[in-house]
């Protein structure tokens, strides 16, 4: 909304919204509204007020972090508007703002009204894309309004292209209308435009996230059989990642087989994904197997590979091997980062070697790698578990002085350790810090404190020493 001048804002949000119902014919509406809110010369007068930035689109998925398979199309609407005349841009942003607070039907009549009152304004593809995004993101049990917008587009001479598909799919996915997205993609593929690989992979990724595997496979098969759209390496990586996350490693290995059959050569990313699958399940042996396979294939492991490996080995209790890999990665010219060290410290703390982990912190800082709150939390928890309360307290001092956040587990362990020693007041102070630094929600912080105190009281009553 913010970009509409105040005078217009009130017009849109109050009178127009309420008066303009879709039952009133558009001509009548324009007649009603036009003389008051849109005098003929408004656009020219308003121009200086209109921000020249490319319009921003709420509810559009372009805020996603740009990963390798994210679409180029994200830059398309803005670049096309920068070239477009100011008139078009103004009308588009007005429509955009209007769309964000109204229904699809109202937006369509609003567009009609703009076209009638300003003959110089001819909507282009991006204008219709605004309507399309709106109709896709509205919760709707059917695809009727999407079809309506697409038809409107078609009658005005714009046949849907791959950007249209992309925008529709993304909006539908974000509104969690996966079934509709699949339906629409199939329909558009059969009629005019196939989705490009970015759209396709985006859809597959979202299907993986929110629907079960059989539906994803069904979609992939349908697209291959009916529209000759084959999954690529990225698609397979998404699928493998998904089955690894559901701990279904047999399926992952099958997919790797399929991948090879299809003639793709697994890259570093695929291997990292599989390795992650093993590491999360604490299967260090298999993780090393993947590492060796990479070496055999002549692929150079990257920082992520090493971090994953060290994480997995630490998790499965092979700290010695993890340390060895820390050496190897430095030799290969990778700089271990906070993640590497934190994983390793975690492993050492698990083994009860909290002092060793503390020494590693020194080593890490000496190499110029600065620890983050996760590192400190891991250490704090480790020290408490090894009953080194004084060291833990020192570390807590550092955390406080650097204004870092505490993690839930570390907070709980530390509070418990303090209470066990009878230092309840200090536990309260940690509680205050956790709340103040917004490390945890008030509720979590308080429930932890309360249950710890309850436990302490019980222990006291039963005559255990504090």
């Amino acid at each position: 909304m913010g970009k509409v001048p105040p005078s217009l804002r009130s017009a849109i949000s109050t009178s127009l919204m309420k008066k303009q119902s879709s039952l009133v014919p558009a001509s009548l509406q324009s007649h009603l509204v036009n003389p008051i809110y849109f005098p003929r010369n408004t656009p020219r007068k308003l121009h200086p007020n209109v921000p020249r930035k490319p319009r921003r689109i709420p509810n559009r998925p372009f805020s996603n972090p740009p990963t390798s398979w994210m679409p180029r199309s994200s830059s398309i609407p803005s670049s096309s508007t920068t070239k477009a005349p100011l008139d078009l841009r103004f009308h588009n942003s007005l429509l955009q703002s209007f769309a964000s607070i109204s229904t699809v039907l109202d937006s369509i009549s609003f567009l009609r009204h703009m076209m009638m009152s300003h003959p110089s304004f001819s909507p282009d593809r991006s204008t219709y894309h605004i309507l399309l995004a709106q109709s896709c993101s509205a919760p709707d049990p059917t695809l009727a309004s999407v079809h309506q917008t697409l038809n409107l587009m078609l009658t005005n001479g714009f046949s849907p292209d791959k950007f249209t598909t992309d925008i529709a799919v993304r909006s539908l996915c974000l509104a969690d209308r996966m079934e509709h997205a699949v339906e629409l993609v199939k329909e558009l593929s059969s009629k005019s435009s196939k989705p490009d690989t970015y759209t396709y992979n985006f859809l597959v990724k979202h299907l993986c996230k929110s629907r079960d595997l059989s539906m994803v496979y069904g979609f992939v098969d349908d697209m291959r059989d009916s529209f000759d759209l084959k999954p690529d390496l990225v698609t397979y990586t998404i699928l493998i990642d998904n089955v690894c996350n559901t701990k279904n490693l047999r399926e992952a290995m099958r997919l790797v087989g399929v991948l090879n059959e299809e003639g793709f050569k697994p890259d570093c990313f695929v291997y990292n994904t599989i390795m992650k699958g093993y590491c999360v399940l604490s299967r260090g042996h298999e993780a090393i197997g993947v590492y060796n396979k990479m070496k055999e294939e002549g692929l150079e492991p990257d920082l992520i590979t090493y971090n994953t490996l060290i994480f997995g080995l630490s998790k499965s209790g092979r700290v010695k091997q993890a340390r060895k890999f820390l050496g190897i990665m430095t030799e290969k010219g990778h700089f271990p980062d906070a993640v590497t060290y934190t994983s390793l410290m975690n492993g050492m703390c698990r083994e009860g070697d909290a002092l060793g982990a503390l020494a590693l912190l020194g080593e890490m800082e000496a190499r110029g790698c600065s620890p983050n709150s996760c590192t400190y939390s891991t250490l704090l928890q480790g020290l408490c578990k090894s009953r080194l309360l004084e060291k833990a307290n020192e570390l807590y001092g550092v955390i406080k002085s650097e204004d870092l956040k505490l993690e839930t587990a570390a907070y709980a362990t530390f509070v418990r350790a303090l209470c066990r020693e009878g230092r309840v007041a200090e536990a309260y102070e940690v509680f205050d810090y956790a709340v103040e630094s917004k490390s945890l929600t008030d509720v979590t912080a308080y429930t932890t404190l309360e249950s710890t105190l309850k436990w302490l009281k019980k222990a006291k009553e039963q005559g255990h020493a504090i």
Partner: protein
Amino acid sequence: MLPQRMKQAITDNPKKLANLIDLVNLPSTLREFVGQSQISRLGCFMRVWSYIKTNNLQDPNNKNMVNCDEKLRSILLGKRQVELVELPALIKLHFPKEPK
């Protein structure tokens, strides 16, 4: 591990969370202390704890003890001294479980 178990407890039992954060109509003694007619158990705990801190009511020799002043005594069963350990339990007394 404590926190995971707790998370489980909270997700398993939304009622437990509810009786911590739901606003409750207060009895008159507490109303006077808090200065408003409704507060949640969590809010009340925070209020009391910050009252203790701002008025330096912790015993200087043993920080785990609180020397109650008049006002605090009125809501904590009239005790002269309370331990910090029992503070949540004492406050909970003002928030009885609702009869089913």
